């Protein structure tokens, strides 16, 4: 049991001084630090390098540590849960710390798990069996975990981003702000997104198990059953779409339902059949701001389509750069992505759409969505992302792909924020636009 967290620090623990008192002092300090599990690997290395006179083996250190821990009864009680904490942190990155601490007492009295904690004379096979037994869990719902499970099932962070783009769409629409409609549109979009993400995870269980990025999802780990996931999806989707249709307007409701269908029934299966999944996925990302706009105005104006076009074009540098570094996982999992099957196309499309963002920004004033200041103030960030996309196109290596991906993460919020500040202010009664180049009073 001590080996698991120890082995993760193997490269560090291998070299330790044995030099007399200093060695003992260092050992005790290091052991105490491990027990507290506050020490990072880097600090350990710094401590090790102080005295490189004599080296100690890893096994010797573990033996000494066991002796020290056993002789100190206080530590024996403490060390075990802390080491479980380290192991769980390393294994279940998605779990919150609170949940892990709650789980630790539950591990002890579970039936089917046996074994004394510190027993160095235990045979290897029995210990392996005991370790394996500890990893088996009952397949039943822990009600206290449900909020966290639902958050992960609905990909809450992604949902939050989707709602933000929808809210931006609403805010950009040239109508007075109505907080009730805004709230209903946001809640409806949130619920629709939760539905789509849950069904996506329900479809993809064996594939998610095999990819590092997704192997800690709730359905993969068996925290809830497939039926439970589908029920949750229906419980979100039906009220969500109903709220959009009845509380906002039928067009927005239709767009919400369409988006759920596109994501679950088109994008998700297509991921394994053809590279066109990326274009479908870009449309899925483009629809929320359109929904926000139609929630405000009730009609599909050119402005709505422009905002949708921003999101559509942005998806390509974002996703193509992300998928560039996941090629091995995608290949093994059977996902057909441009980065694997058509790498040249992948880079070209990312560059094309990054440059396209500059052109789309120029359309803002043409369509009376923004003032003329918008293309000018957004030019620096658009040029920067185009530059990174060009480097990605030219060199096609991991570094440039990563840079492009991280740039896309802040580029979109900045662009939407700039559009919002450059929004063309209107007097509601007028048909024609007001005097040009008057930035919104919000500035």
């Amino acid at each position, binding site marked *: 049991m001590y080996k698991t967290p120890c082995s993760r620090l193997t490269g560090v623990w291998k070299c330790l001084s044995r030099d007399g008192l200093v060695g003992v002092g260092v050992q005790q300090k290091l052991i105490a630090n491990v027990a507290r599990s506050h020490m990072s690997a880097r600090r350990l290395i710094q401590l090790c390098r102080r005295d490189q006179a004599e080296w100690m083996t890893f096994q010797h250190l573990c033996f000494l540590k066991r002796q020290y821990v056993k002789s100190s009864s206080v530590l024996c009680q403490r060390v075990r849960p802390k080491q479980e904490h380290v192991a769980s942190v390393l294994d279940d990155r998605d779990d919150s710390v609170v949940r892990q601490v709650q789980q630790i007492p539950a591990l002890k009295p579970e039936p089917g798990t046996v074994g004394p904690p510190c027993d160095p004379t235990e045979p290897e096979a029995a210990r392996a069996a005991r370790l394996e037994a500890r990893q088996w869990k009952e397949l039943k719902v822990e009600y206290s975990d449900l909020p966290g499970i639902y958050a992960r099932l609905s990909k809450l962070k992604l949902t939050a981003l989707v709602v933000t783009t929808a809210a931006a769409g609403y805010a950009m629409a040239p109508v007075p702000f109505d907080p009730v409609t805004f709230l209903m549109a946001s809640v409806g979009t949130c619920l629709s997104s939760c539905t789509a993400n849950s069904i996506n995870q329900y*479809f993809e269980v064996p594939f998610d198990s095999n990819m590092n990025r997704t192997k800690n999802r709730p359905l993969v780990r068996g925290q809830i059953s497939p039926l439970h996931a589908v029920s949750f999806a229906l419980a979100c989707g039906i009220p969500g779409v109903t709220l959009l249709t009845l509380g906002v307007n039928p067009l927005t409701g239709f767009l919400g339902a369409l988006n759920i269908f596109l994501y679950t029934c088109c994008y998700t299966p297509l991921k394994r059949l053809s590279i066109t999944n990326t274009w479908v996925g870009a449309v899925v990302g483009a629809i929320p701001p359109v929904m926000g706009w139609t929630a405000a105005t009730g009609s599909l104006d050119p402005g709505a389509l422009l905002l949708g076009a921003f999101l559509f074009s942005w998806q390509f540098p974002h996703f193509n750069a992300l998928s560039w570094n996941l090629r091995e996982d995608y290949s093994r999992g059977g996902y057909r992505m441009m980065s694997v099957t058509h790498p040249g196309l992948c880079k070209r499309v990312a560059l094309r759409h990054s440059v396209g963002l500059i052109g789309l920004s120029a359309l803002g004033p043409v369509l009376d969505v923004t003032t003329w200041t918008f293309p000018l103030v957004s030019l620096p960030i658009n040029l920067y992302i185009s530059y990174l996309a060009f480097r990605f196109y030219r060199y096609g290596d991991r570094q440039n792909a990563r840079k492009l991906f991280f740039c896309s993460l802040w580029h979109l919020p900045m662009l939407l924020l700039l559009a919002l500040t450059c929004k063309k202010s209107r007097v509601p009664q007028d048909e024609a636009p007001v005097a040009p180049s008057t930035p919104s009073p919000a500035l």
Partner: protein
Amino acid sequence: LVHSKDSKKDSKTATRSPTKHHTGETIPLIRRDPSHCQRTGFSPAAASKCDWIGPPDRLSNLRPIIYHIPENETPLERTLRHLRQDTEDWSHEFWTNQNFTFSKEKEEHVRSQLSSKGLSERDDDGRKRTLSSEEMAVFYKHFLDKNMTRHASYNREWYGRNFTITLLMARVALHNTWRTLTGQTRGTGREKGKST
């Protein structure tokens, strides 16, 4: 889908004892295919009334499940359990094969690339040489293209099985809820409601 499984189910019933209560050591061995015996030595305690889910399998990365067989299991529940077990086995076989083939072909590709460049497998420090991501990308594309029809047929079947299992789970849950609401019990005081 259920019809085609009937013959398999009958042959499996001969080796299973679905009406026996879950007792621990022997039941999993009798219940499961030989491949499962090798896969896991774990057996839940006799008192447990739940299914148990294990750590990801070394080969297929899928988590095995040991199903609890309740007393007076209804035919619907038995169909569901068999279907889930069958799907688990079939999926495990596919992914084991997939991951193994992938690793093997990847090794071969690296070896052939290195030998065509005149390099040995290990460099002067004894570490294994790796190829650049561009050279590996050729292999990844080739692997995907080669296995396209196999993947597509797995997808189709997986969607069908997943959907059938979920429908059956819904029917079992509704059936149990109805029986509890109308006051019928199994006769052993089994708890109400949906299994997860």
